[in-house]
């Protein structure tokens, strides 16, 4: 009896709150930061939709998998290509309904579930005051002078670390293990995430760090510092995409579709460069901010589909571990 009463009260409370529809978007933690893309996306979308966009930030995929079909998410944003296989197998997602032809990516995009909203090339970023001639390939990096040291991220805990693992595997194939052995003397240490590694780089502990080709744009635009540059390898660079997707079981499907429409708009796309310090997924080069247009780009992009990545990952990880644990 009492329970019915409480349930009734809760229901009526929800009914009052539900006058403004709510779009719940699961996003990685950096969306919650006032320095990240979250606030401008929220403001921009709420202007169009007459709704309340609420970011729920944290570990997106583990949370979604734990919640299953009972999830409160309507849309997710910020998944990476390395986990899409796991995500797709959950069956929780609906088609994104956008035109992949409108994307301006370095690879042909054929996925109709996961929609890229920004991307970058995985790259080694170096300090020009400490390195005169940066290596122009993986081979040159391994053969670099003894004082050229790098910090990388662990492929077991970091997505950029995993991207490097796949990049090396794509370039070296069966020789990847030997390559890691030759690179080992260059690697000062391996960190859990990007922040620790990049902090060691900006603190001057190492002259070069694993990051993204667009990282220098932050220093150029926000700090007017041109001493941080990405080393461009002629092996080609691994492309790293961040994705948005619609949840099948959403209770506001129109809003979710409208959000994915919004992702493809110029408004959204032109916010990405200076909030997420990466390339937007559907914006012509000439519309990029000044600091981005001048960034060097590799001649070719390397990318494993989720099935290819899944097929090589375990073996590549074991090679990496064995080569660096010696």
């Amino acid at each position, binding site marked *: 009896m009492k329970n019915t009463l409480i349930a009734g009260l809760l229901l009526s409370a929800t009914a009052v709150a539900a006058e403004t529809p709510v779009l719940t978007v699961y996003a990685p933690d950096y969306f919650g*930061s006032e320095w990240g893309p979250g606030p401008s996306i929220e403001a921009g979308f709420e202007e169009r939709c007459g709704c309340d966009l609420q970011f729920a*930030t944290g570990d997106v995929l583990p949370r979604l*998998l734990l919640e299953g079909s009972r999830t409160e998410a309507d849309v997710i944003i910020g998944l990476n290509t390395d986990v899409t296989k796991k995500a797709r197998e959950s069956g929780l997602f609906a088609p994104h309904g956008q035109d992949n032809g409108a994307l301006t990516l370095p690879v042909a995009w054929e996925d109709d579930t996961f929609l890229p909203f920004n991307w970058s090339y995985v790259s080694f970023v170096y300090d020009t005051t400490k390195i005169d001639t940066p290596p122009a390939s993986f081979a040159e990096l391994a053969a670099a002078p003894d004082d050229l040291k790098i910090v990388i991220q662990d492929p077991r805990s970091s997505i950029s670390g995993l991207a490097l693992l796949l990049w090396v595997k794509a370039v070296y194939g069966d020789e990847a293990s030997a390559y890691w052995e030759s690179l080992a003397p260059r690697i000062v240490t391996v960190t859990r995430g990007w922040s620790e590694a990049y902090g060691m780089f900006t603190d001057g502990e190492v002259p070069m760090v694993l990051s993204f080709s667009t990282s220098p744009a932050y220093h150029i635009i926000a700090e007017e510092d041109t001493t941080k540059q990405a080393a461009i390898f002629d092996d080609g660079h691994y492309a790293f995409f961040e994705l948005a997707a619609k949840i099948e079981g959403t209770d506001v499907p129109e809003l979710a579709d409208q959000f994915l429409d919004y992702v493809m708009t110029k408004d959204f796309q032109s916010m990405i460069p200076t909030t997420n310090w990466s390339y937007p997924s559907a914006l012509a080069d000439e519309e990029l901010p000044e600091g981005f247009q001048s960034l060097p780009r590799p001649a070719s992009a390397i990318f494993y589909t989720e099935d290819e990545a899944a097929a090589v990952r375990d073996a590549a990880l074991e090679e990496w571990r064995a080569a660096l644990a010696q």
Partner: protein
Amino acid sequence: MARSAGPITGLAGAASVALLALLTLGTLGAVAWRAEGVSGLGPADWYAIRFTVLQALASAAISVVCAIPLARALARRRFPGRGLLIALLGAPFILPVIVAVLGLVAVFGRQGIVNDLGAVLGLPQIVLYGPQGVILAHVFFNLPLATRFLLQGWLAIPAEQFRLAASLGFDGASMRRHLEWPMLRATVPGAFLAIFLICLTSFAVALAVGGGPRATTIELRIYELFRFDFALGDAALMACVQFAICTGVALVALVVTVPKVSMAGLDGIVARWDQRGRVSVTLDAAVIVAAALFLLVPMGVVLARGVPMMAALPASVWWAAVTSLGVAMVSTALALTLALSLALWTARGGRVAVGLTEAMGALVLTASPLVMGTGLFILLFGWTNPTALALPVTAVINAAVTVPFALRVLAPAAREVEDVYGRLSASLGLSGWARMRLLVLPRLRRPLGFTAGLAAALSMGDLGVIALFSTGDTETLPLAMYRLMTAYRTDMAAGAALLLVLLSFGLFWLFDRGGRVDADA
């Protein structure tokens, strides 16, 4: 000595044990329940287990061995600023991981102060990265804790005993054998165990200064299994391994611990007659200076960077600080309640209470933050939206994590109150709240102050457990700092880190000081 506990003491103690069991074994059970199969332990897992245990043993042993001369020197010397130094030496324990790592790198790294000095003197470069780095970092974090435990031990030796020893003409060796050695036998195993367990769940620190995949810990495997494979069964299995190691080491510690014999004193100021020699003064001074340099320079380097940024911190960081202070206050109140109820329960409740409390304390230290967070999420998701509970969950977990440390200082003190004053208070008919107010709380003031300080400081820090619980618009200070780092704002992050440490430290100082207003320590 075992007499039956009062009904309220018993109830509160049992409830506290139940809460800790839920947070540790309960969360593990929840994760295992959601698992869809286990693939067993592979070679990489065994490698991780071996590395984890070895580094934890070495880190704990070195921390405790270094803490003995340091605690001894601090216990028997008086100098201006001693109180402040003791408090400051505790600060590394509350540093956010990333701040501590960058601090250690700034001092011991390739371009660090030590190597710069060494280059001037023509010494070969020292290499931070490797197992030595892992141990160095863990000693940096845990030496303060070990010192604190042992210092409490030294200060608990009544002044009268030293006076008696002096009047009996004890020399240094006899002093050590009759007064200090029994105290160490009672304190060291507990301190060693606590630090071993803390190092058992290390992950980010071990990796960053470990130089590569050689430094793979169990916690990293759990993280990998969660994040990439979503293999809950294997993650739960690794968490069981952590608990098994914890149990094994706890049993050993239990066997080698010699229970302390309670001694009454009149709380006089300790005067030591065995410390006047020039050699002993020089040695103590050298130990204190070396420890201060080791612990304070890395902290000073990173925090100094934050000073110019303090004024420029955005409003959101200050709001985050307010949120964190709120969480810390709730967490502190909860930690005090838990720890005090457990301490009183063990003091009066006999062996079962002691055993259960010790076991829970050890499990809390060993529990994988990731498993705890996921398990809680699964448990809460059954009946409510966990997102709304992010901050309360943070407060509860932070309080639970403080309990084992608090018990180290609180439980012996509570036992001593029972042993020494129990019969007197019984004969005076003192009971209930009057007994609490007139006897227990005043006698426990010092460890209670320490407990409150530690709880407050620790809860300013942690963010690892609630990664699944979205905090929505409310961010805590460590989260704000981390977000600044991911947005490339390293200078502002340094400012936020300084604010975090100042607040943690301020709270610790305030409570700890409050606990010993009129004491000479």
